[in-house]
């Protein structure tokens, strides 16, 4: 057995906070992955896709990180069922590139296409259609998981289902996903028909969601989180459905082709502090003011789903200090009060979130650490600066009081106690993790920070007690 080489380098998530020194492996073939795990060269390992999780989920300070860049082969495709089998490192971008022209789109997509299939499963990602379609897990027919014991398990909702639901949302800690079969969605065109609708405040936005979300497959709202008082939570709702071929204007020659927009890049790191409440406030005022209610606008999938992907390295806008994306889910009953409280605290803190997104979630799935729960979700981008962490802990308490939780794929600052209180199935997850990985071979900086693995961080009993209090 040849020794797999690694490179020692500083890695970070998309938020560029934190930055940690890791040993990065880059296998070229699937069968190199068991060799890496069995080599005993590192204290622990975690798989990493395209590094789009924001915090420390795909970091493993002082230990092994298995980069999936080269494990991106397609294996088989069945045009009848739309099921694509691929290696876990295949990106959503390459799936779109090769299958949209044939009339298939992703069944669920997060706000960037630069994520891998394996990463999408590990974070159990959701998209603008969660209220209708749930998370990616619903479209994963099965995946193969290399367990730390060296066994390859085929997991689906009917086979090894406990492992399936521990792995979907399990942040890579149950095993290393090798391949997956994902059911793509047949589409007639590369376009969405979008309705834009303004809401003067949070209450109105939530009212519109409740009233008419079911008419739309995709629904999301941009929210001005600097507006205060009666305008607090003013928003622009953007909701749409896949455009049938007949709905396209005459000028479109190929209904399944994306109008190549090209891309731009943020070439250098901009000064930290450039995005502050004045610049963001000015942007928000213009953005909200400029928007008119429009119905049935034809928007291509790329523009609709990935507005930021066309600006490469947009995370550099936040400068060296980086930023934190803070995304929470809140249940239906307490949600509106919780959202209002979060927005109030945010506006009161004089911090500016450049990107703030609100959406309604459909029912949760059985994923033990899956993030979405029925209700609402709010996502904020906050530049790292003095006092940010205590402020986020303050928001954590608000979220917890309202029965909500924080999204691990974005998190960098949660405490183990808060995490345990937010994820009531943690103990069940730990049981399965212990069974699959008694030696603790799979770990990550996030896992250690949050005590996701028993024996690390705080004991689960203490966290449970905290929740009661």
């Amino acid at each position, binding site marked *: 057995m040849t020794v797999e*080489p*690694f*490179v020692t380098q500083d890695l970070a998530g998309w938020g560029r906070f934190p930055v940690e020194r890791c040993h990065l492996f*880059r296998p*070229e*073939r*699937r*069968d190199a992955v068991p060799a890496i795990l069995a080599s005993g060269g590192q204290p622990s390992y975690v798989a990493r896709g395209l590094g789009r999780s924001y915090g420390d989920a795909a970091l493993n300070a002082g230990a092994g990180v298995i980069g999936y860049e*080269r494990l991106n*082969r*397609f*294996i*088989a*495709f069945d045009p009848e069922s739309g099921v*694509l089998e691929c290696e876990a490192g295949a990106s959503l971008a*390459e799936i779109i590139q*090769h299958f949209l022209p044939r009339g298939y789109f992703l069944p669920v997509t997060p706000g960037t296409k630069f994520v891998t299939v394996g990463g999408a499963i590990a974070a159990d990602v959701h998209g603008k259609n969660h209220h209708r379609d749930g998370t990616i897990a619903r479209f994963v027919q099965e995946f193969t998981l290399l367990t730390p014991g060296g066994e390859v398990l085929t997991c689906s909702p009917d086979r090894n289902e406990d492992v399936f639901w521990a792995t979907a949302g399990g942040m890579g800690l149950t095993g290393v996903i090798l391949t997956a079969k994902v059911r793509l969605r047949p589409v007639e065109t590369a376009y969405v028909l979008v309705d834009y609708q303004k809401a003067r405040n949070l209450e109105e936005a939530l009212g519109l969601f409740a009233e008419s979300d079911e008419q739309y497959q995709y629904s999301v709202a941009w929210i001005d989180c600097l507006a205060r008082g009666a305008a607090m939570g003013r928003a622009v709702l953007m909701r749409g459905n896949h455009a049938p071929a007949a709905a396209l204007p005459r000028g479109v020659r190929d209904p399944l082709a994306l109008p190549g927009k090209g891309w731009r890049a943020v070439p250098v790191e901009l000064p930290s502090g450039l995005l502050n409440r004045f610049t963001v406030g000015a942007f928000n005022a213009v953005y909200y003011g400029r928007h008119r209610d429009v119905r049935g606008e034809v928007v291509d999938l790329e523009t609709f789903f990935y507005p930021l992907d066309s600006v490469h390295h947009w995370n550099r806008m936040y400068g060296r200090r980086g930023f934190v994306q803070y995304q929470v889910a809140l249940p239906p009953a307490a949600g509106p009060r919780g959202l209002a409280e979060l927005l109030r605290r945010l506006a009161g803190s004089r911090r500016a979130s450049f990107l703030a997104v609100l959406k309604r979630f459909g029912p949760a799935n059985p994923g033990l650490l899956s993030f979405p729960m029925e209700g609402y979700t709010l996502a904020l981008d906050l530049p790292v600066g003095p006092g940010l962490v205590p402020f986020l802990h303050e928001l954590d308490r608000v979220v917890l009081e309202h029965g909500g939780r924080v999204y691990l794929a974005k998190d960098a600052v949660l405490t183990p106690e808060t995490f345990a209180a937010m994820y009531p199935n943690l103990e069940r997850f730990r049981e399965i993790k212990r069974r699959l990985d008694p030696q603790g071979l799979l770990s990550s900086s996030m896992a250690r920070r949050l005590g996701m693995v028993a024996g690390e961080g705080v004991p689960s009993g203490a966290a449970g007690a905290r929740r009661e209090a």
Partner: protein
Amino acid sequence: MSSVLILGATSGMARAVAAEFAAHGYDLVLVGRNRQELDALAADLAVRYQVRTDVHLLDVLNFDDHERVLGACLTAAGDALAGALLFFGYLGDQALAERDFGEARRIIDTNFTACVSVLNILAGHFQARRSGFICAVSSVAGDRGRQSNYIYGAAKGGLSIYLQGLRNRLHRSNVRVITVKPGFVDTPMTYGRQGMFLVASPKAVARGIYRAVEKGTDVAYLPWFWRPIMFVIRSVPEPVFKRLRL
């Protein structure tokens, strides 16, 4: 539909080049020594680009198999075959090769002797058809011997000279011979090694190779800046060069 023959198809660079040709609609005949890897590559390219792929097994160090396997490839590909690309290579361990002739011979046989045998067969095929191209990957390491890799460099240098002669021979037969001299490329050959710089992505190099084949470039340095770098390195007088630690 046109096709291309790719030898050493599972190498890091060949995988990217195969994808580049498939993206331009070429069917692929893939030759390598690991069945599983070849099948995985072939399936990926077939699903991704909807091209036809055909797989043949060959360990290039088994010289006696060359005629038979290449014959089968050429017969299967037929008139559709636009050209052949040769990617197999072995960097080896210079220090070991200085002590152990087995390692030295493996480096020389993989990077030179096997190439001669394979290219002789391909040259005959394309010369008879009076069309096609032969593209082989040599290395900037073959441009000047230096202590850190001169056995590999000698083999690649030999290959570069063989290709010069072959180009001269086939010119009249309307067969283009393209020598590719890549610098460091981000493949398993270089990953995790010390002393790498200006490392190019396999994709960028693959694009360069496709362009060189299309244009019929005689000698392509990839990326381009290796041409002036190697010009400078070749220009250093030997009395000075021998004192350098390279």
